[in-house]
């Protein structure tokens, strides 16, 4: 099966600019996650979708970050305006459903964002 696809792989922007990341999950996976991974740290959950509804966005900085999954398939994550501390790898993951035992997460290769 095709894996989780993310684009772009790399992005360099200046602070205060906007940026968007795209994720195409594994076909049939109802649950989609966006994680932020700062260099040397573990991934931090930003937002979790179940189909096109938000399950958890408690750690999403809503003043600058937004995410949507309009048709319950692809998702986009946007940052506007970007700050230096947003430099990180943004990982998208999907799972068949909520409930990790029977629905392990499959990760994409991420988008590496550098804010200068």
């Amino acid at each position, binding site marked *: 099966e095709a894996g989780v696809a993310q684009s772009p792989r790399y992005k360099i922007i200046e602070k205060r600019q906007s940026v968007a990341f795209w994720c195409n999950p594994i076909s049939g996976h109802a649950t989609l996650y966006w994680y932020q991974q700062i260099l040397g740290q*573990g991934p931090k959950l930003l937002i979790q979708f179940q189909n096109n509804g938000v399950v958890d966005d408690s750690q999403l900085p809503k003043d600058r970050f937004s995410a949507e999954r309009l048709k319950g398939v692809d998702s986009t994550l946007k940052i506007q305006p970007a700050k230096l501390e947003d430099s990180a790898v943004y990982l998208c993951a999907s799972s068949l459903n909520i*409930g990790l035992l029977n629905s392990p997460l499959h*990760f994409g290769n*991420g988008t590496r964002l550098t804010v200068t």
Partner: protein
Amino acid sequence: TQLLEQSPQFLSIQEGENLTVYCNSSSVFSSLQWYRQEPGEGPVLLVTVVTGGEVKKLKRLTFQFGDARKDSSLHITAAQPGDTGLYLCAASGNTGKLIFGQGTTLQVKP
């Protein structure tokens, strides 16, 4: 807030040596997972442990879940350069939210 602490943060060893990585928390988890991440790629699931005291083996890797389901360990026997990577533990509580530790960077030198 549920936190997972991994130790050590960095480990550099020679090929053929054994090593153990630890994942500890003050919280009880319904399940715990170990992932391996290589540079430029996303984490890949190695194993899920569910039952307190459970031991799972994956070739030269041995995973153990603590009796109280608050901690776990990963032991690698006769490490090889191909084992190099970032090892992450992750756990899920009652909400289903997956929380990651900060990771252990392993370097195995030939």
